[in-house]
């Protein structure tokens, strides 16, 4: 598995033939293995040039993962950028970065959050005590407390879908093909090629977390904490003066 939704559709026929020929036992999506397969290292490349800010990924994630109201595992941060008198929109899909060195894991006092051998960082919400230490430790504000389970929650790369040979819901639904998911351990995968050839950026590289969500076309101004005016629904007087 390695593609955006577009490529996935193109390869669907071949996959069907392959499945029939190999007669492999289909893995049950409900029986997600706890440790994952070390033969893979799942990653995502986000081509922000292709993102149109439709939030279809945001909605798909909520529907797929039953994310409670007012919570988000992924969202497309949207900015209006005015540069030399010209205004434009800038979209930045955000999600858990499934870091190589995730700062959320060592702080966990119960071992509820851990990294599978395939790199996906998950939370066992039957073990999590909801102390929220991991929420504090994540530099990307990617974690939150799920008030239905009262435990830490975050993007899992739709691990239950990946285990079943499917793409994450956000990738599946992306209209512009901006989200590309695949295996970094496969040198021929699209993500491997993009990471190798496009030298994409990551968010907050100075944190040393080595994210495995890469961005193509990432504006350095958006790479860390964005220095801007907060959302329109909360205009600040000083910002209005700046506009004047």
């Amino acid at each position, binding site marked *: 598995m390695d593609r955006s939704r577009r490529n996935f559709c193109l390869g669907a026929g071949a996959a069907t033939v392959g499945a029939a020929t190999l007669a492999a036992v289909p893995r049950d999506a409900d029986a997600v293995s706890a440790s994952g397969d070390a033969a893979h290292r799942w990653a995502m490349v986000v081509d922000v040039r292709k993102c149109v800010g439709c939030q279809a990924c945001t909605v798909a994630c909520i529907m797929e993962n039953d994310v409670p109201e007012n919570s988000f595992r992924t969202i497309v941060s949207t900015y*209006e*950028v005015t540069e030399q008198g010209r205004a434009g929109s800038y979209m930045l899909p955000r999600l858990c970065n499934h870091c190589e060195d995730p700062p959320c894991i060592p*702080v966990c006092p119960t071992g509820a959050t851990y990294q599978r051998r395939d790199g996906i960082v998950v939370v066992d919400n039957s*073990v999590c005590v*909801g102390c*929220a230490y991991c929420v504090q*430790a*994540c530099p990307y*504000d990617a974690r939150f407390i799920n008030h239905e389970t009262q435990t830490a929650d975050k993007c899992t790369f739709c691990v239950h879908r990946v285990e079943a040979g499917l793409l994450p819901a956000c990738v599946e639904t992306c209209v512009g093909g901006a989200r590309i998911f695949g295996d970094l351990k496969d040198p021929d995968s699209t993500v491997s090629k993009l990471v190798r050839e496009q030298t994409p950026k990551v968010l907050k590289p100075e944190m040393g977390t080595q994210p495995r969500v890469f961005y193509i076309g990432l504006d350095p101004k958006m790479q860390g904490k964005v220095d801007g005016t907060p*959302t329109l629904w909360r205009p600040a007087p000083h910002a209005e003066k700046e506009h004047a």
Partner: protein
Amino acid sequence: MMDTHIVEVINVTREVAWLPWAVQYFFLIGLSVGGLLLSLPGYAFARDGWRPLGRLALIVALTCGLAAPVALLSDLHQPGRFWHFYVVFRPTSWMWWGSLFIPLYIGGLLVYGWACLREELQAHGRVDSRLAGLYRLAALGGGRDDRLIRAAGVFVLAGAALVALYTGVEVAVVKARPLWHTPFLPVQFLTTALAGAVGLVLILNRVVGTADRGVEVLGNRLLAAVLAAVMLCGGLWLALGLSELDAGHAAALDSVAGSEAWRVTAVWAVAATVVPFVIAVARPAGTGLLTGLIAVHSAWMFRWTVFIGGQSVPKTGAGFYEYALPAGPDGLMGIVGTAGLWLFLLILMTALLPVSSTPAAGRPANASGHPGGRLTAAE
């Protein structure tokens, strides 16, 4: 210079995940540790001049120490799973270490408190009252035992040091929040906790104590010294941030410097430190209630600002998250409830062992004649 302006149109607001319960916990455990340290000279090191202050400090240590874990447990979103801490080995997590240190400290504190108050329990057991039997039972047939007090004191001092260490470092290691990620934070927690503990001693001196002038003067002098340390730490943190000698501190200052609310908070914090300092230095007698109230308020405000204010700084988004104190258990009720629990413990403790009714001032029915002396024999 390129003129760029960014307006955030859509983003997610992350709510605070460490609730006002956490503020209450860090406040109460800090005051408990501070109270314990203040009680040690009078009890563990048998310095009689420190006894009256130490007696009040002991109340601070015990009442705050017993209320604190309740607040901590409530801050867990799954409090019923607290035992999960104790079935794993997670040495990389300071919170996990904390789960070991807290019972160590509280257990030690209870033994130490009992050892310190045993003399009083014995004296109350000699008074002809319905509860005399219970007091005698609580005294376990003994009285003052300085060796026991010292041993328990040393043990609980180690526990207090570990609690002070873990509470500070647990927050300071969070690299994702520049405001927290500073080696100053553990020291600031400790110094403000000491200031709060002295402040509470000064308040209790008036409210449940005998308004002892000696305690007030000593307390105010201690408060002035501790507040000087608080100002030194704050000044060094600010200097590091302004001078940009250290990128981390500069980032921390930069993350809030543009906010009017944070500027007001900073002025408030400085005023709440400088004003009691000046009063305590200029007029240590007769001002204990005032300086005490300001010091306790200042210690609480520091924690509120660190935790609630700190979590209002987005890690990736623009500006600040807004926080409105909820009225329910996750907000106001949590604060009021914890304060109520502490008040209950204070009433209970002072009702059972009134400060003004020390063994010397009590009415022993069959006193040995040396209420302040060492009594080891069973009655």
